């Protein structure tokens, strides 16, 4: 069970560093769900924020933290839950954790999704395990009287996350897979325009790979909707000191800057991110040319 609305409204600010104890770990399709007990974390979590986990134990040769969207947070039980995919040695170490093991966590981090002041129809779009933060977000939106339409997409069925839970949190659900193993054959953007039109949605929330976010942002902009995109950029520290997780974002003053996805993000307005220039420093970036 997720937390109540009052907790979000009164959320503490700032992250906590803690030695978390593994409560449970379970596979879910191609992913693992990891529940961690850490005092002081859960009551601070807002939808869209992430946790940075140290991997490999106290003597680890892997120094960089791994960042994961927070899926669930339960202040009563003092637990947080993340979803992870095994990409390399660090995530393999996490997947091998057993109940009772300890892992160093820093959380919650980053700017959460902004919630509307008034009820409005919202479309939530997730690629792969980018759905992890969307369930919490959906709960918050429905508490505010918003209709929630959820789109879950992945390359194949085993890379979808949370389909079984979707009924509980959303007014409508669309599933897409590129290989047709579940739902509509294709990508989330194949069903998104019609969904936005039918729902008369002016707010789109998205989390997933960069290419998907770029496409979702473009669709939203075309249809006159705002988009909030949570990026999955590689990070070394997660707390704002290493300057590795930057991407080009247009500021209120119209200038493009290389901003940190860990503290200025991970949630950005889709129309502010220079999606086509991610991985480069655009010519007109503030501070370029020196």
């Amino acid at each position: 069970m997720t937390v109540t609305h009052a907790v979000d409204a009164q959320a503490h600010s700032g992250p906590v560093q803690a030695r978390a104890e593994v409560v449970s770990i379970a596979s879910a399709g191609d992913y693992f769900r990891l529940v961690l007990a850490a005092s002081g974390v859960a009551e601070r979590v807002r939808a869209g924020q992430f946790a940075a986990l140290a991997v490999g134990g106290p003597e680890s040769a892997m120094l960089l933290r791994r960042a994961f969207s927070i899926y669930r947070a339960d202040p009563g039980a003092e637990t947080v839950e993340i979803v992870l995919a095994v990409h390399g040695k660090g995530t393999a170490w996490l997947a091998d954790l057993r109940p009772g093991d300890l892992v160093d966590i820093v959380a919650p981090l980053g700017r959460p999704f902004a919630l509307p002041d008034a009820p409005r129809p919202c479309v939530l779009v997730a690629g792969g395990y980018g759905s992890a933060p969307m369930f919490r977000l959906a709960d918050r939106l429905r508490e505010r009287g918003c209709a929630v339409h959820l789109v879950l997409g992945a390359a194949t069925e085993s890379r979808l996350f949370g389909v079984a839970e979707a009924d509980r949190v959303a007014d409508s659900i669309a599933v897409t897979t590129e290989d047709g193993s579940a739902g509509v054959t294709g990508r989330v953007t194949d069903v998104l325009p019609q969904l936005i039109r039918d729902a008369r949605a002016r707010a789109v929330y998205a989390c997933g790979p960069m290419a998907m976010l770029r496409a979702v942002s473009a669709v939203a902009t075309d249809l006159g909707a705002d988009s909030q995109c949570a990026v999955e950029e590689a990070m070394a520290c997660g707390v704002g000191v290493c300057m590795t997780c930057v991407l080009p974002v247009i500021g209120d003053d119209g200038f493009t800057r290389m901003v940190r996805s860990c503290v200025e993000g991970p949630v950005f307005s889709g129309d502010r991110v220079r999606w086509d220039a991610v991985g480069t420093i655009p010519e007109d970036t503030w501070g370029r040319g020196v």
Partner: protein
Amino acid sequence: MVDVDLAIDLAGVALPNPVMTASGCAAAGRELDQFFDVAELGAIVTKSIMLAPRSGRPTPRMAETPSGMLNSIGLQGPGIDAFLADDLPWLVDRGARPIVSIAGSAVGEFVELAGRVSASPGVTAIEVNISCPNVENRGLVFACDPGQASNVIGAVRREVPSDIPVFAKLSPDVTDIVSIAESVMDAGATGLSMINTLLGITIDPDTLRPTLGGVTGGLSGPAIRPVAVRCVWQVHAAMPDVPIIGIGGIRTGADAFEFLLAGASAVQVGTVTFHDPSAPMRVAAELAGELARRGFGKPAEVIGLAHQRRGEA
């Protein structure tokens, strides 16, 4: 166990302990203040500041390596105006002791930066970054050439009031670090910060291309610690009276203790802060424990101790 007093006198500056953040690993202190009290640490060494705002190098900017990482940030920063208006006053108001790292691409830039920084209230010391490897032209790594290193440090020293120490940050990517150290000390440096990162490359086996957007990067973390200890050892052996700030892969109080034994008077904690944002203060506390367990009452008692023959002291 004896009571340990970690307080030190570093080139005339009193610090509550010999542990600092390392430049580029702590931004300007604000983010880490969420994890420990920045006013309690010996000093906060800020990310190298340049005259103009700078957007840095393209991503990917980091690659994890065994017990370390490569970075190619490329000195991204807000420029000196924003730093002096915002970052430095915050550190001073907060009660921290700021050591401001400056970087430039020409001697005149270093001089202007040094002048503006030293005219600002509350600066504990200046660290001159003449050794960042993430620049387009290796010829701009002043610390790779004794003459160029000397030119920068001499010009900075003349600009900075004598009560503000000037530390030269050296690169290990040189044939003879002692000759570089001697040249910057002759030019008027108060002391040395050593070492900066080592130049490295990793190649992605899937893309078949270098991992980093900037191709080359600086290697840091515990992987380089023996190189750093060696550099401190060699320079301390040649110039035992020169204050050295030891930097390179410090993860624990025992690691900091090793640097003191090699000849460092203080240490900086860098890359490990990415792994553990509480690391700088933890290292200070652990260092006190390392000293106490061996019966030492203060850091000064062990500086360079490893150079004495067995049986001495």
